[in-house]
């Protein structure tokens, strides 16, 4: 069972997926305008993040877009030191799950010095390396 066991190298399989976003495209359009949206079911009022074009509770397709206020409280966090291959060079980065004032939770990177559970954070839409995303920052920061 040593490392010098004979082997044959397989053919290369390159996997890149085209992930459809047609049904929730408004989420990215709004990020561009600096807003982070969730969806709310008009039938049963379920608020949903990540957004969903069909309500997971009642299957109603009648959902509306709701802007999140951006006010959240840290529920838990971790600082990633060992990054996966596709994030090499990015580490360390801090991942936070915060409960937003509206009730939904959001997982995103946190850009700031100190972090602790129960701390108030602000959720901001952001453009980074030409792509749209969202981040937590300390509450008293207004963002770019």
């Amino acid at each position, binding site marked *: 069972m040593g490392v010098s066991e004979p082997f044959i190298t397989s053919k290369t399989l390159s996997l890149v997926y085209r992930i459809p976003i047609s049904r929730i495209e408004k989420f990215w359009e709004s990020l561009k305008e600096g807003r982070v949206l969730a969806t709310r079911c008009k039938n049963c009022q379920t608020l949903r993040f*990540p957004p969903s074009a069909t309500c997971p509770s009642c299957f109603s397709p009648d959902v509306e877009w709701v802007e999140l206020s951006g006010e959240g409280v840290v529920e*838990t966090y971790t600082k*990633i*030191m*060992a*990054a*996966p291959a596709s994030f090499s060079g990015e580490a360390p*980065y801090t991942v936070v799950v915060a409960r937003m004032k509206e009730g*939904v939770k959001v997982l*995103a990177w946190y850009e700031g010095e100190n972090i602790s559970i129960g701390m108030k954070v602000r959720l901001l839409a952001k453009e980074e390396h030409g792509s749209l995303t969202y981040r937590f920052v300390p509450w008293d920061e207004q963002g770019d």
Partner: protein
Amino acid sequence: MKEVAVIGVGQTKFGKRRDASLSELAVDALKDALEDSEAEKREIKFLSVGNFGLSSEDITPAALVAEQAGLQGTTTMRCEAACASGSAAFYAAWLAVSSGIFDIAVALGVEKMTEVETPTMIEILGRAGSYFWEFHEFGVTFPAYYALYATAHMNKFGTREEDLALVAVKNHKYGARNPLAQFQNEITVEDVLSSRMIAWPLKLYDCCPISDGAAAVVLASKEKVKELGVDTPVWIKGIGVSSDTSTMGNRANFIGLRSSIEAAQLAYKMAKVEAKEIEVAEVHDCFTIAEILAYEDLGFCKKGEGAKLIREGETEIGGRIPVNVDGGLKAKGHPLGATGVSMIVELTKQLREEVEPSRQVPLKKYLALAHNVGGTGQYCYVTVLGR
């Protein structure tokens, strides 16, 4: 519903198995399980194969394994439930026999994780959640998902990094007594605390290794057990399965796994036993925090008292409920699809009092529990076994 027994078990050594392919490892385990049972190969008409996949070349392994085992013509399929894929296969085989459709079934778990480079494997594991919203955007790794739980548990209950380290120390201690375990060395709390930080507060020695391996079990109905004259059948007394959100952000809390709590309650109810009656357990310790959560979620102690349980040595042999005395995922290794089946292999041997004497748990009621988590509680399977 028919009563079902485990009548044969087999497992390969876990570790870097560069000497064998996926189907070769699978057949090694299957052959051992069949030899351990009173059944004949020609009687096997159902074979479920637990395999997470992606890290080895064959993406449809069930038919290949069946062919290599000379079992073409059997009812077969791959079962996938992330790190609980082996338990999914075990569950399928149990359903096959308990339903009365088959009187014998084989559940096999196999994984080859070292055929790809380690960073590729980390990439694959990180995707075992909500790819789009959590991996693609934020590069959340598998250790990081559990670290979210560790942080919350430490904050709420005062669990310390030293307590997490004790889990690794215990599991290495027993791994060193299990010839099938990947790691055969004991470690200290200091070794764990000084190891490289992976995702705070989890360090390298808080994490299970990347492993290759296979395990197989033969199941039979009560009628078949009688017909074959099986000496020491191990009965499946209860099985519970539950699930939780794929997206971490949508979890109700980070201090316990909902799927573990629910699966355990279902299994105890079916088995008509209470947590305190269990005498030996295999729990899913992919990361040290996961074992602490399991103590609490399975009812071995109250919520928040998991650290106290390990600190007081209650989960060692001689303690109230010995846990992972084969080394657990941490030291035995965690070849994803093989793990759930391997837990049944170990507990069957414990209940037959056949393991190495230095790690045999003394038994009175002969009740054992296996707890296998897929992902970060996306799936959970709990099985109660007894003599």
